[in-house]
């Protein structure tokens, strides 16, 4: 046998990879033309893509934006050509966005600034929750700027002065952020300078501002509703101190519900007669278009996550009755089509209500869609909980964390992180399901498109309307999808 012993005398240095495997050429060779079959497939795909685009693009880029009817569109395009008639979007886009929200055409002022401001404030309210890289300062700048622009738009002496003052404040706070670098800021804080208040304060009061902006009426109603939470909180503190936390929670919930059901409207009326501040009331039946979809979608998304978490935890609970209630709720809601629930909301509920009660149709739909989304959310989160190793619970126990602290600090952050793709899928699904409300007669974009098509001028236009609606939905859903990917990247802690 020959000598097998071998000792390396020096370690090999690193070398650059061969030129054919890097850069554009390398990439194309590896991914597009790595063999005869792949090359043929690549070329065939390119031809196919060209043919599809060649058919679609001329249809899309048709100069019919100013057409006032279908016939006019045909004249503009010329006979024999088939092209989109975008005049319908030009004519009706405001309706597709706002439904029949008062625009001043039936007398009174144009109120559509209210949904727009509510939408802009929605972004201000969610940024501190969604994006950690936006600083507190930036958030307050955004809020001041939105309010300032609203003031300017509303005009009048007060609006103008207030608007300019707010914009000035925004600019001042903003420029201060530009001028002070991090270290100077840290030194300031060290020296005892006050930090800006947490923008989450605004996120917390937004749920009371938005309905007021959208539905109008007296400002005291949302304030009274918010007071319910304050009353509930203090009731909990006092009762819990005397009788323990479980009794405290039950007592607080009962007191808050009593406040909301029986005392809220009286309080609001009383305060309104003392100090009337109100916006013109807008009825629910005037809501429509994307404004309606976004309202239902945002409420369902925002409420389904916490309710889903509670249901998922309840389903895992050792307490028999809690568990049975949660399982029953989840399985019942998941076992019934959303349409059925919406029909119940639109017709059946009225039968069971005492005559004369007016339970707002949009509120009923909101509750049903939220419950529906919560049941799915609970199961998605349960999947995340199941994926966590038992060791995490044991480590939390061994360190002396109680159930709620362990859930909040250890279990939920990880379970929710695992479930992000599923949760966001649910969000997207719920948002698209809002189109189902057209079936019970609410005028969401799809409902409106039927109405528009019934118009003599736009009789039978399908692709343009559905294309426009699809595009808007796509923008929202795609944003949510990208956000979930960003969030997953940000929360990834294994290999960085």
């Amino acid at each position, binding site marked *: 046998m020959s000598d097998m012993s071998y000792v390396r005398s020096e370690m090999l240095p690193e070398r650059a990879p061969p030129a054919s495997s890097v850069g554009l050429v390398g990439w194309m060779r590896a991914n597009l033309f790595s063999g005869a079959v792949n090359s043929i497939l690549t070329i065939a795909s390119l031809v196919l893509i060209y043919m599809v685009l060649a058919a679609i693009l001329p249809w899309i880029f048709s100069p019919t934006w100013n057409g006032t009817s279908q016939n006019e569109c045909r004249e503009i395009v010329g006979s024999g050509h088939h092209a989109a008639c975008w005049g319908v979007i030009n004519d009706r886009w405001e309706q597709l966005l706002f439904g029949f929200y008062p625009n001043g055409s039936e007398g009174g002022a144009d109120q559509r600034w209210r949904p727009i401001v509510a939408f802009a404030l929605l972004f201000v309210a969610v940024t501190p929750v969604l994006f950690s890289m936006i600083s507190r300062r930036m958030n307050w700048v955004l809020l001041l700027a939105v309010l300032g622009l609203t003031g300017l738009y509303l005009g009048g002496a007060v609006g103008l002065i207030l608007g300019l003052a707010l914009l000035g404040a925004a600019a001042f706070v903003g420029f201060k952020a530009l001028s002070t670098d991090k270290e100077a800021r840290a030194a300031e804080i060290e020296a005892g300078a006050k930090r800006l208040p947490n923008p989450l304060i605004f996120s917390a009061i937004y749920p009371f501002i938005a309905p007021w902006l959208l539905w109008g009426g007296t400002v005291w109603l949302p304030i009274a509703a918010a007071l319910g939470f304050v009353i509930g909180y203090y009731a909990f503190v006092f009762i819990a101190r005397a009788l323990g936390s479980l009794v405290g929670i039950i007592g607080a919930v009962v007191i808050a519900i009593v406040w909301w059901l029986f005392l809220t409207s009286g309080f609001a009326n009383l305060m309104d007669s003392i100090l009337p501040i109100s916006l013109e009331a807008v009825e629910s039946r005037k809501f429509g278009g994307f404004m309606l979809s976004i309202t239902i979608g945002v409420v369902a998304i925002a409420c389904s996550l916490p309710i889903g978490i509670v249901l998922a935890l309840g389903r895992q609970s050792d307490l028999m009755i809690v568990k049975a209630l949660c399982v029953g709720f989840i399985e019942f809601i998941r076992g019934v089509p959303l349409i059925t629930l919406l029909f119940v909301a639109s017709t059946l509920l009225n039968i069971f209500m005492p005559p004369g009660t007016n339970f707002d149709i949009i509120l009923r739909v909101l509750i049903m869609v939220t419950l529906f989304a919560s049941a799915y959310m609970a199961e998605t989160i349960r999947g995340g909980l199941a994926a966590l190793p038992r060791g995490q619970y044991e480590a939390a126990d061994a*360190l002396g964390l109680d159930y709620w602290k362990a859930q909040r600090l*250890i279990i939920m952050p990880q379970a929710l992180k695992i479930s992000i793709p599923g949760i966001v899928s649910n969000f997207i699904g719920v948002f698209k399901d809002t189109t189902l409300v057209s079936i019970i007669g609410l005028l969401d974009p799809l409902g409106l498109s039927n109405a528009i098509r019934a118009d003599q001028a736009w009789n039978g236009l399908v692709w343009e309307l559905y294309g426009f609606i699809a595009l808007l939905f796509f923008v929202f859903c795609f944003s949510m999808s990208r956000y979930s990917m960003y969030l997953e990247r940000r929360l990834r802690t294994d290999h960085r």
Partner: protein
Amino acid sequence: MSSITLDHQIDRSKLAVSDEVAIEIRNMNKWYGSFHVLRDIDLTVYQGERIVIAGPSGSGKSTLIRCINRLEEHQEGQIIVDGTELTSDLKNVDKVRSEVGMVFQHFNLFPHLTILENCTLAPIWVRKEPRKEAEERAMHFLEKVKIPEQAHKYPGMLSGGQQQRVAIARSLCMMPRIMLFDEPTSALDPEMIKEVLETMVELAEEGMTMLCVTHEMGFAKEVANRVIFMDAGQIVEQNEPEEFFNNPQSERTKLFLSQIL
């Protein structure tokens, strides 16, 4: 099983055992369903003792130490830890858990928190310490387990041995009087076993009461003042390490030792 030789020569004269009782287990029984997993366990642990619990798998040794901080419930008998009896009263359970640290086979660090946050979480939320104080002590213990430079990394970026040392530091941050080790080196490579064992030796030298389920017989010989051999849910034999290894009495112990040494 071969034993890892430790560089650090332990000075046994430093290892004092007081006559203050740390843990008292009386006539304790536990069942999983109808399976009788722990049978008539009687054990008194004194402050400063280093006890190694050995035995074949399924003998109930992990279950025994998990009963001590009530990760498992016992059905009969008494367990008294530092004067507090473990009952279904959650207040007692919380009190015991804040005095007993535990290190797991699979580390069980919280992967979504940095090393420093892992160490400060329980002091801040359970002991209500100010963040700054908790962080200072966490850094002190991280230095002690020789990984202060990893404080701002996440557990997933550390080697197994480093993770286990963080787990030890995390337990120490709660200032426990007793430490439980549930096979702390079983999931580690030989190179890493050594660094973890050395950390444990240092802990022993400082007088920590330790109960350690392990197969590291080298560690048992060098550090333990008592070795307990368990089989089929009962304590079969216990003795000083030298006697235990050189002169085992029961047939079951002899068989076990002949297989692992």
